[in-house]
């Protein structure tokens, strides 16, 4: 009987201790626990270990900064760069050579040019224009005409149309795209005119004046 009582009191005491131990405040991990664990994992298993576990939220100011930079880049290419390609890329010598009348005709082309992708001058010269009338495969190209000295008729036509002379730019200088288009269009138009046989009873508009060839006789 006394033994049972002692067991019972012991259980009660044990219950008290248990209650006290359960009631003491629960200790929690410190706030820097995750960062410390990530650092330890990286130290123990190389730089990438644990890096994917503790993904930190990206701060709002970083996102706004990135968006501002992205907007700036997009805005620069969308707004500023095409206007740079316009009038300012035309060298002064080109505009002098083309003349005021041709420049008026060129304005719509400039507008179209803004929508076209920028290509290097070498590619531009070798690529035929879409507006250019297609000639047969045996027809000489514009460059061949120039090289073979067949500039007589275009030069004469220019002379008759007001003395405006289309100059061939030097090969080492890159030709602006607008000027190149004007030149090519003019050449194709001249080639078309040249292919039409002139009637004999009218004035030969393709008559070559020696002085228009720059002194060549």
């Amino acid at each position, binding site marked *: 009987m006394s033994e049972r009582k002692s067991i019972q009191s012991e259980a009660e005491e*044990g219950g*008290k201790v248990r209650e006290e*131990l359960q009631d*003491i405040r629960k200790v929690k*991990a410190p706030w820097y626990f995750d960062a410390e664990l990530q650092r*330890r994992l990286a130290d123990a*298993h190389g730089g990438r*270990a644990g890096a*994917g*576990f503790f993904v930190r939220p990206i701060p709002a100011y970083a996102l706004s900064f990135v968006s501002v930079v992205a907007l700036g880049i997009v805005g620069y290419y969308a707004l500023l760069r095409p206007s740079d390609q316009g009038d300012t890329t035309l060298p002064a010598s080109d505009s002098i050579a083309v003349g005021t009348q041709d420049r008026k005709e060129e304005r719509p082309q400039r507008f179209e040019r803004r929508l076209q992708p920028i290509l290097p001058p070498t590619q531009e010269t070798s690529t035929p224009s879409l507006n250019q009338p297609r000639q047969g495969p045996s027809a000489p190209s514009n460059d061949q005409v120039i090289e073979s000295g067949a500039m007589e008729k275009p030069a004469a036509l220019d002379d008759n149309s007001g003395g405006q002379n289309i100059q061939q730019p030097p090969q080492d200088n890159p030709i602006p795209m607008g000027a190149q288009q004007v030149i090519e269009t003019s050449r194709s138009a001249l080639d078309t005119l040249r292919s039409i046989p002139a009637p004999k009873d009218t004035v030969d508009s393709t008559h070559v004046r020696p002085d228009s060839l720059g002194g060549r006789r």
Partner: protein
Amino acid sequence: MSVTGGLSRKTAPLQELSDEELIGEFQRENEAAFTLLVGRYKDPLTNFTFRYIGDWDECNDVVQETFVRVFRSRHSYKPVAKFSTWLYTIATNLAKTRLRRRKIRRFVSLGSSHSEDPEPLFDIPDEEARADRQLESSMKGERIQKALDSLSDKYREAVVLRDVQELSYEEIAAITGLNIGTVKSRINRARSQLQEMLKDIWDD
């Protein structure tokens, strides 16, 4: 936990998994499962380790090292035991090692105190700045922790696992590697010793 907010979108289905399923996911290299396990067990493990070791800095170190071991040895876990048992076993073994080292350190420092060198071997930490002292701000909590610290390691281990962590006898037996009878015996002895030490608290 600062990471749970960032991961909640990504790991929504994982949160419903059990610990054993999560460690299985982690064994299949699902990194989010490990984060969830850390989130579930860092607080209980810190509580257990602090009550067992009684030192805040060492407790943190042990819990961190426990999770590093889990990370490293994730493939050695077999689903025959509960994950919590495996985790507490790792933490208990690490804590025992720390306690052994501490005893050796004390022994060495006591031995060297008889030498002629007046310089102390270790700096005495500022008691006010210690986090564990701040944690036990209440007199009662401090008394209980001191009573726990004064128990022998084997009794303290058993009673903390049972009464603080509220694990079952079977889990404690699996963690400590003892049979259930021995576990119960140790728990009872620990309780009676604590009862004796904390008598004045209940008298008040």
